[in-house]
């Protein structure tokens, strides 16, 4: 009996130490990645300094490197993808968890998760051969008054920001919607029952659930954003790979991950190589910043007082 207790205690310590070691290991890995990226890009950091973030020129022949068009392309395409995918992903999640008949749930879950399992090169090829021609038709059909807007200038190439954003959105949907669905499922049934008890309609009850799950849903969206930032193969096949800064959705642009994948193998000069690694470093920093912002956002939401509008209207109707 006493031996058992002794073992139990060492087990506790071992277990605590073991899991703690893994947690520390994670921090060490992140730190090591950051340090190594810094070390491998030191030539470029010394040569260009902050200019690297602010210059538009990317000229391997002349040895001039600036990352701004790539930073722009990465953020612009990811934000556009988020704008397109969020309503769809949330719609899917809400329908599956709240509204769909039970027999439909399994096939729907299976299909959204199937989207996540498709390799990105397949998305890219599908993009070139199916999506891009459709986008070009759309661009050809764009009325002239729209073309005068900064978002729709340029010749109808098909490849470009719009195609990239659309393909990213499709790739992000399964991630956001799966997590959002799980989050919605974790809303206690008592919450919904309470809402119904107060006379809430179905829509009001769902809004209650959405509000209850809001931090998790933001987290689901940010997970999709992180994926969009780093997506490489599918994007590079449809974005047109042309480093320029423009609002136009029709214009070919470039992303950080894409230029890394494209130019790394053939980069022979040291400075060129270091500039490419610095792109990776910049992407690493931006990903950290984006995650920090989303964390801060979630944290500040958790501190907010709960608005009771939905409940109040329901209660008012019940008493009427």
């Amino acid at each position: 009996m006493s031996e058992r207790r002794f073992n139990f205690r060492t087990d506790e310590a071992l277990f605590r130490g073991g899991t703690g070691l893994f947690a520390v290991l994670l921090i060490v890995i992140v730190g090591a990645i950051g340090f190594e990226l810094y070390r491998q890009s030191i030539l470029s950091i010394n040569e260009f300094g902050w200019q690297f973030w602010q210059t538009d020129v990317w000229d391997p022949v002349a040895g001039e490197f600036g990352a701004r068009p790539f930073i722009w392309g990465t953020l612009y395409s990811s934000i556009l993808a988020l704008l397109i995918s969020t309503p769809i992903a949330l719609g899917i999640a809400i329908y599956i968890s709240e509204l769909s008949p039970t027999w439909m749930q399994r096939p729907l879950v299976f299909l959204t998760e199937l989207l996540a399992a498709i390799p990105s090169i397949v998305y890219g090829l599908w993009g070139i051969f199916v999506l891009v021609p459709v986008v070009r038709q759309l661009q050809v059909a764009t009325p002239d008054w729209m073309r005068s807007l900064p978002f729709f200038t340029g010749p109808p190439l098909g490849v470009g920001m719009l195609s990239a954003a659309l393909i990213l959105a499709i790739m992000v949907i399964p991630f956001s919607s799966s997590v959002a669905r799980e989050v919605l499922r974790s809303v206690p049934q008592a919450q919904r029952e309470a809402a119904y008890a107060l006379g809430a309609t179905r829509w009001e009850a769902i809004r209650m659930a959405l509000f209850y799950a809001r931090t998790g849903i933001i987290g689901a969206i940010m997970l999709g954003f992180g994926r969009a930032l780093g997506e490489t193969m599918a994007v590079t096949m449809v974005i047109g790979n042309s480093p320029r800064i423009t609002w136009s959705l029709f214009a070919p642009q470039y992303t950080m991950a894409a230029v890394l994948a494209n130019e790394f193998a053939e980069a022979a000069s040291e400075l060129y190589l270091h500039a490419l690694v610095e792109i990776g470093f910049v992407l690493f920093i931006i990903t950290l910043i984006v995650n920090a912002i989303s964390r801060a956002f979630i944290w500040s939401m958790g501190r907010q007082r709960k608005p009771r509008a939905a409940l109040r209207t329901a209660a008012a109707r019940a008493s009427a």
Partner: protein
Amino acid sequence: MRRPTILLVLPLLAGLAACSGSQPAPASGSGAASPASGGAQLNGAGATFPAPLYTKWVAEYGKVAPNVQINYQPLGSGAGIRQLTNRTVFFGASDQPMTDEQLKAAPGKVLHLPTVLGAVVPIYNIPGITTELRFTGPLLAGIVLGKLTKWNDPAIAKLNPGVTLPDMAITVVHRSDGSGTTFIWTDFLSKVSPEFKSTVGADASVRWPTGVGGKGSEGLTGMVRQTPGSFGYVELLYALQNKITYGAVQNSSGEFVRASIDAVSAAAASAAPAMPADFRVSITNPPGKDAYPIASFTWLLLYEDPGDPARARALVDFVRWALKDGRSFARDLGYAPVPDNVLEMEMRALDTIKVQ
């Protein structure tokens, strides 16, 4: 709850041990190194363009000298040069010769040996036109620089009488990934257009003044096929395999030459008399009536003193076999082989490699 803790910690320790302990096993090389008894392991890395041929060579050589193990990793020319410089591979391969600075950075003297030739052809997608168009060097440079923006530009029409060119914008498509194909293409354009040379220059990746980038030959071809009015460039081999119509290009003698394996070998042969001893030569826009002007060698990179005599001998034997007996495989796979006069020079150069 007792066992799982141990089970959780063990794989971690095993993982750490594996990280620190793994060293590549040294290759065992016996002194006697006739082709059939090497017993050496040779690792190489580099250019992707000749990779199908090198793989074929390695497989065929395995029948001649079963004891020699050769691994070739097609990681790209830049990676090949880097790994050779770091001595992580025994031989490298590249689609463009090493620069003087790169040679200086290498820990030993590096030999360049041309293996086969690559050629680049202009491709286009103009609705209603299936015939072969003619281009001159300056015209190609004008299109790529964005100076010529319409297919019915008088400069294009003049070269192609009898072809009704549409009033359609030219969309230039280039390779977005660093590539030897881009190097040959921009090397040629730099030779025929001073403006291209000063504003863009020649490299595996350049700063394009206009157009869109497709990833890989297949990405570029996909874009050209689907964009009416588009213009691009691919390897001759890729165009032949995929039955893509391509244009003829005027060479330095004023002839319009359609790229073919023979026209590319002719380019190499005409460049041979002026071949420098280190083989680092650009043969774009060569003299010669039959020569196709947008062509280049691809090179194997070897240390003059590889440091390991047994493996060095195995490597020299392999390269000698590949360049001589391997030529028939080159032709079968659609590569233009190195002409005889260059081959003789290479055999002499191979003799300088230290195998003792």
